Structure formats: structure tokens, C-alpha cells
């Protein structure tokens, strides 16, 4: 079953476009990572899906309804980011108790256990928490709400490494027992790559990639060798990026190499490996590793 479907969606802030021609759909109970460079349009996209904003043009369907102004969508979804606002006078404990009135599947006991584990005091107000603890509290709310559609927009901002790992593991464990559709944005592909099934890459206001993590990884190949050998071994292939590596070079290519062609590469002394997901993502969003060098390369004509 399709939970989210966008067709030719555009969004403009006054007259400036932030999303153009966005078309994709997401199936029920899939965890999708949402990635993109700063200002690519991730947050805008997630807020449109959550029904917080209206698309300027195009069709948005969540649970077969336009999410903007939909009671169905707001009752069955939760959107977590680092700008959550809660009623000021309420202590965390009171908040956790009241959430059951908003979220049908709210699990207060799980929330309490997570609060204890992450050592967040109950009898304090949200505004007095540190940055990392605020994020952790929001993440707990997002997990314990058990909404059919759960959206986390950079949930780990400010969390330390241990808290991040624990959060992702807690989310995954709860997901295994209570599957739901999850959107998870992060700037750190490395930390979400294991728990997501699909990746949605937003680049320059558009969808640059939507598919499984492994397909993206296998779509590219990293080759290392001397320039001469690389030129010889990659005749007629599509080169995505070239980076200097000491005396050698590293080239990233689209992976349409046959076994025979890979054997030829090895014979030329060219090391060929699959890219890490992060490098594949960087290749897609045109951030060739070492590209910042060009800024300092004043010799360049």
C-alpha cells in the first residue's frame, strides 16, 4: 500500500522556487532516509508531507488525502524536528502523560523507560533541557507515539555519539515489533545507512535518487591507479569524478563493468571497489572528494 505519493509538486517561497517537479511515492512500513545538501529542500518537503505547509502546485497524497488541513493525516502522523514547541508551564512528565490524548497508539510506559535510560529528569520543563537532551526527548516522543507515519527531520542534532547510536537502535527495535512508515533525514548518511531501506536524495530542489541503499551503492565503482592505466581501462565509460590521491588518481565511474572488464582493470593494476554509501551519495550530489582543493588552486586557469 502506498502511504505517500507526490506528483509534480512545486513549492515557492514568495516567488523563489524551493522544490520543483518532485514526483515519488513511498510504500507502507518502509524506513526511508532523506538526504541532501544544506538548503536542498528537505525540510520543506517533509513539512509538506506532514501537512504543515501547502504545495504551490502539484498533487500531494498522504493516506489518500491531501495532508494540508487533513484530520486523518494529523491524527496518524508525527513530525519531529529540533524546533518542537510544547506548552510552556508543563513538566516533561505531564507532557508524556498528555500525549495519549493526541496519539492513539501512544505508549507512555515505553516513553518512561526511555526517559530513564537516557537520564532525562521527569520533573523539569522542556526549555531547561540542554540541546542534546531536548533532541533526545523529542526522539523519545517520536518513537513512543507509534504513528503510522513518523517523520524525523534531523532528530540527532546535538546528541552525543552514544545517544545517537542508542536512538537509532531504539527506533529500529520498536519498528521491528511495530512496523510503520518512517521518514528520517540526516546529514550523516553513515549513521542512518544501516537502518534505512530506501534513500531519497533531494538535490537542487529535485529528487536526484529514490531507491534502495544497495542499488545506489552498486551503481558506482571506485577505481585507483595511474592516470595512464585509468584512461586505458575506462575507455567509453561514464566518469563521475576524478580525484588526485598522491601519485595515483581515484576515479568514480558509473558501474556498467562486466566481470571480464573488471578482470582487465585488475590486470592493469587498477584497484576497483564498491563505494561506501556516503561516497556514492557524494558522487550523486556532485561533491567530489577533494573538490574543495579547487578553491585554493589559484594556478588553475
Amino acid at each position: 500500500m502506498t502511504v505517500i505519493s507526490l506528483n509534480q509538486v512545486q513549492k515557492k517561497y514568495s516567488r523563489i522556487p524551493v522544490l520543483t517537479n518532485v514526483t515519488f511515492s513511498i510504500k507502507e512500513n518502509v524506513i526511508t532516509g532523506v538526504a541532501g545538501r544544506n538548503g536542498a529542500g528537505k525540510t520543506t518537503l517533509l513539512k509538506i508531507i506532514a501537512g504543515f505547509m501547502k504545495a504551490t502546485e502539484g498533487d500531494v497524497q498522504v493516506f489518500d488525502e491531501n495532508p494540508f488541513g487533513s484530520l486523518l493525516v494529523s491524527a496518524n502522523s508525527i513530525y519531529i524536528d529540533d524546533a518542537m514547541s510544547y506548552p510552556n508551564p508543563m513538566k516533561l512528565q505531564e507532557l508524556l502523560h498528555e500525549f495519549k490524548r493526541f496519539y492513539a497508539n501512544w505508549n507512555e510506559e515505553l516513553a518512561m523507560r526511555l526517559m530513564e535510560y537516557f537520564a532525562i529528569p521527569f520533573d523539569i520543563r522542556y526549555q531547561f533541557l540542554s540541546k542534546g537532551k531536548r533532541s533526545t526527548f523529542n526522539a523519545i516522543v517520536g518513537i513512543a507515539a507509534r504513528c503510522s507515519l513518523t517523520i524525523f527531520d534531523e532528530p540527532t542534532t546535538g546528541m552525543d555519539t552514544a545517544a545517537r547510536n542508542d536512538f537509532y537502535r531504539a527506533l529500529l527495535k520498536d519498528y521491528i515489533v511495530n512496523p510503520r512508515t518512517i521518514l528520517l533525514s540526516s546529514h550523516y548518511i553513515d549513521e542512518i545507512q544501516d537502518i534505512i531501506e530506501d534513500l531519497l536524495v533531494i538535490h537542487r530542489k529535485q529528487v536526484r535518487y529514490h531507491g534502495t541503499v544497495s542499488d545506489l551503492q552498486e551503481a558506482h565503482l571506485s577505481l585507483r591507479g595511474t592516470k595512464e592505466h585509468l584512461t586505458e581501462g575506462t575507455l567509453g565509460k561514464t566518469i563521475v569524478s576524478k580525484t588526485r590521491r598522491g601519485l595515483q588518481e581515484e576515479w568514480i565511474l558509473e558501474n556498467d563493468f562486466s566481470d571480464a572488464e573488471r578482470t582487465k582493470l585488475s590486470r592493469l593494476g587498477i584497484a576497483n571497489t564498491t563505494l561506501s554509501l556516503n561516497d556514492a551519495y557524494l558522487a550523486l550530489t556532485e561533491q567530489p572528494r577533494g573538490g574543495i582543493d579547487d578553491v585554493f588552486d589559484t594556478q588553475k586557469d
Partner: protein
Amino acid sequence: MSLHDVDGDKPIYIQIADWLENAIIDGTLNADEKVYSQYQLAELFTINPATAGKGLTILLEEELVYKKRGLGMFVSPDAQKRLRTKRKEQTLRKLVQDLLLEADLLGINKNELDKMIEKEREYREGEPT
């Protein structure tokens, strides 16, 4: 448990398949023994259950495991033997190819290489286990 320490750049589902194959080769998983479910693997390695399922599918397609309706997957009786052959023909052969490539690069002849292998073997055998 983390997979990435071993071989970080391989897609995760392939790492899962490799891990299961190793468990069959070294006898951790015996013939007709129940294999971890995709959810157990997901929990064990903190990975998405769909990814774990994809790893299991590789073994299923190669008939290294078989399905029992409602009970899960089990190790095929000849899985260990077939995996050993496959590893010999693929992984070991590749290592030998790489070895020869490096030897050629360094200008090491057959005699010298044979001696090196023999020396390493003696060293290994001499090691207390």
C-alpha cells in the same frame, strides 16, 4: 555487533550473506539447523529487516538454505561442502591471482615465491594454537 569493522564498503545485504556463509563454513550453523530470521538478523546487527531479508534471499537463491513453511529457513545438507568449493574457486583463486600479480610487479620468480609460501606454512604450523 557491527558489520562495518570487517568490510565497510560492501553493501550490507552482501555482508549479511557473507556472514551467514562463514557461519556455515566454520560449522556455527550445521546442516538442517535453523538459520536466523530476518528480524533476528536485523536486531543482531541493527540493520533494516528488509536488508537482512535480502541477504537471506541470496542464500536461498543459491539453495544453501531451504524454507520450511511457517518454521523459517534451514541450512541445506550439502551447503558447507558447496560453499567450500565455491570459496576455493572464487575467493581463493582471486587471492592467488592477486599474489601472482604482486609477485610479477616485484620481479619475484616462481622458485622464490614457492619458498616464501613454504616458509609461511612452516611458520603457521610451528605456531602454538
